[in-house]
């Protein structure tokens, strides 16, 4: 469920968009303006929430700077210097200003700038989630299509149960059990970490994505070793993504197969395989993109839960470490970045929906 994006946006099923007549450009510009506006508001909301969370922390940020035994005068001076004597709204605008200029504060636990830390750890998460979503799409879409085309048979029932398991299994538990079975017992996959220890740090980070960096460096051994290590965590993420994608695909396909134009295709004598893939599947491609986008965003979020299990040096691991050390700058910075990426992907898939549907073109 940690991986379940809110499905409100995904429930936009094919057929809602209306044909556009004259004034296409004007409407497009209006839609664009509306989109930018809601995006801005959502980001503002995210900032307000992180700001608010930062204020309710029972830790006094001034004490953290000046120390417990600082004289009152020093304490007051520091407080004023940090802007904490100003009205909340001014503090909020200062906060927005510093976030926009890329200043997320310093991490107490690493002693470095949070922004730099995040830049370093984010690619690892991105890599894992990307492989995860690829697994999810490649397996989930055909599963959903197949289940819908054989509605009610045993395979369909099995796929439905897999879909529900995606709601019911804790990700961290699945990762743990996977590690015990596939790594420790069967030795099918690599263990924790992105590569074996003796490969660690051998590749010069260019993109931060080790699969790509190792290829750039021409290190095939490291590439395969990294893939070997990625296999399990990406599969765990892929499972949740495929459960969600298969369920949504199945439900979209059931809608489509009941459509009159699918009957038309059958009347024409079109073979069942083409009825399914050409007539029923093609119209759901667009809403499916939204679903995949949501699922991808969900995986970025969900990686938080399993990165600790796999000692994966990504943003999730960084966040959980920060949480345990009450390192609020790091916590809020990570929240902000994950939140922003999440919102970005969400809204982007929304826009793609509108752009790609031929009925809205």
């Amino acid at each position, binding site marked *: 469920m940690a991986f379940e994006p809110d499905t409100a946006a995904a429930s936009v099923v*094919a*057929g809602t968009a209306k*044909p556009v007549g004259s004034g296409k450009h004007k409407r497009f510009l209006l839609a664009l303006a509306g989109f930018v506006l809601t995006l801005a508001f959502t980001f503002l909301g995210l900032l307000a929430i992180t700001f608010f969370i930062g204020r309710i922390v029972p830790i006094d940020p001034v004490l953290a700077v000046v120390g417990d035994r600082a004289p009152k005068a020093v304490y007051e001076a520091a407080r004023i210097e940090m802007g904490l004597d100003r009205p909340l709204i001014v503090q909020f605008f200062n906060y927005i200003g510093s976030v926009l200029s890329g200043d997320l504060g310093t991490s107490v636990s690493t002693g470095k700038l949070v922004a730099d830390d995040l830049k370093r750890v984010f690619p690892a998460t991105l890599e894992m989630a990307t492989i995860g979503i690829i697994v999810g799409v490649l397996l989930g879409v055909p599963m959903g299509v197949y289940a819908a085309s054989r509605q009610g048979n045993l395979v369909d029932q099995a796929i439905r149960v897999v879909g529900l398991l995606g709601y019911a299994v804790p990700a961290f538990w699945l990762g743990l059990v996977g590690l015990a079975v596939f790594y420790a017992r069967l030795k099918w996959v690599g263990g924790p970490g992105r590569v074996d220890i003796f490969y660690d740090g051998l590749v010069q980070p260019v993109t931060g994505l080790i699969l790509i960096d190792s290829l750039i460096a021409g290190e095939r051994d490291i590439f395969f070793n990294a893939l070997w290590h990625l296999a399990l965590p990406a599969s765990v993420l892929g499972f949740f993504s495929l459960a969600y994608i298969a369920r949504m695909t199945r439900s979209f396909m059931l809608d489509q197969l009941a*459509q*009159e*134009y699918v*009957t*038309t*295709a*059958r*009347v*024409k*004598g*079109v*073979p*069942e395989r083409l009825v399914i893939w*050409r*007539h029923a599947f*093609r*119209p759901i491609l667009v809403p499916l993109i939204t679903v995949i986008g949501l699922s991808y965003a969900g995986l970025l979020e969900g990686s938080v839960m399993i990165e600790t299990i796999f000692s994966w040096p990504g943003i999730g691991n960084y966040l959980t470490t920060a949480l345990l050390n009450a390192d609020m700058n790091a916590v809020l910075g990570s929240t902000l970045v994950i939140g922003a990426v999440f919102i970005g992907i969400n809204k982007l898939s929304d826009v793609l929906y509108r752009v790609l549907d*031929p*009925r809205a073109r």
Partner: protein
Amino acid sequence: MSTPLLEIENLRVTFPTPRGDIDVVRGVSFTLGRERLGIVGESGSGKSMTGRSILKLIRAPGRVSADRLNFDGIDLRNRSERQMRAIRGARISMVMQDPKFSLNPVMTIGEQIAEALLTHKRLPRREVGERVLAMLESVRIADPERVAKLYPHEVSGGMGQRVMIAMMLIPEPDLLIADEPTSALDVSVQSQVLDIIDEQIKRKGMGLIFISHDLNLVSSYCDRILVMNTGEVVEECRAGELQNATHPYTRGLIASIPRLNETRDELPVLDRSAWASK
């Protein structure tokens, strides 16, 4: 007329429900030559189900059974799904009610018509294109090159239905089932669409099953009429002899048709008690 085009005896369509099986078509029998047969009935009378069961396109869990279901000497009852596909489109095809729903929204009109042809014949690409355009022209579409590139939502209902007809007739079937082909259209384009169907039928010598709820329309358009009610055929007659209909349901239907040159205070409503008790 040697063997009839279509022979149906005791056709049943059954749907299982939690409260036991329900027959929506109950023992329908008729034969059809290369003529125009109208099936009339109110919604739920089983007329559409009759049409679809000829193509064996009743969705599961519905079942079709019949003592006889012969098309041009072929027993359709024991045809496999694969063998039925060779018949659908190529030999029997169906024009459906509303082009808004029956045309695929994400395929261009040209693609959809070409598909109907290519499903049954291997043809060079150029010839396909030419035949699609010729077909569109023959359903009185003035600008076929442009229309072929449009998506269904970009054309009007009347044009959509002409596209539908073109698509269903391009493989030159022997039997066309038209399931309420004009009900979703404006009155002004209805007769035009009917003319086109008529013209094509005559030119190619096809059989036509015309399904409608409009008794007037059917009696003026078809050669023969079946009246259906609650899954059964209650009346069968030549179109011209409709006034002599005997079944109370048919008489009731005829009586409730308004006429231009009459002054009735009240249109009679169907009184179902006359036959419902049987």
